[in-house]
């Protein structure tokens, strides 16, 4: 099971889903209307490390985070 968390202003509860890579997650989220506005501008982290490619295999227990645009300070 993979946990997907949506951070900051993304108003969506975490998901627990059976996927094996990020391409599967992309497909699921692209079919979720409420996520459309966030997919183009959010970063993705796997186990708290930001990734820049979808070519990443996932294993049971991994945590994915979606990080929308930031503005600290």
């Amino acid at each position, binding site marked *: 099971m993979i946990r997907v968390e949506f*951070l*900051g*202003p993304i108003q969506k509860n975490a998901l627990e889903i059976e996927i094996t890579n*990020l391409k599967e*997650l*992309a497909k699921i*989220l*692209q079919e979720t209307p409420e996520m459309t506005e966030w*997919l*183009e*501008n*959010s*970063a*993705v*982290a796997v186990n*708290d*490390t*930001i*990734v*820049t*490619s*979808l070519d990443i295999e996932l294993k049971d227990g991994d945590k994915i*985070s*979606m*990080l*929308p*645009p*930031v*503005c*600290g*300070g």
Partner: protein
Amino acid sequence: MLNIYDGALDVPKILEDWYKEESTSNYGAYIPFIGTVREEDGIDGLSFDIYEPILENWFNVWQEKAKAKGAIIKMAHARGDVLLHKSSYISCVFSPKRRVALEFIDEFVEDFKASAPIWKYDLIDGKRVYALDRSTAIKGSGILGVK
């Protein structure tokens, strides 16, 4: 050192604490940056969400960069609401000589604005309004939207 506080920062105390912590460390320069919430566009203040695991990783990378220059950094940030004229963010660099600290605080704060996982909201009539127009997409954003 990275500290997260609930609500506005106590600026004099934090600056004094940091000063005392390093007063005998033989640093020649102590350069702080203090961010204060300004009155603009009718807001009552700002509010912040923070994702600490990635913030700590990001901060540790910068601490290592500082260490390579013989310097150290410290940072404090508010979580939740911060009203007008209060501080939400303080960071500083201690270094043996001033030039390193002056240059480093600039690079560090710029990357902080672009990369640190913190989300800002305007407080307007008691509601939090996400400040999307002032926010920056983290490097590498958008990969899940590629078809």
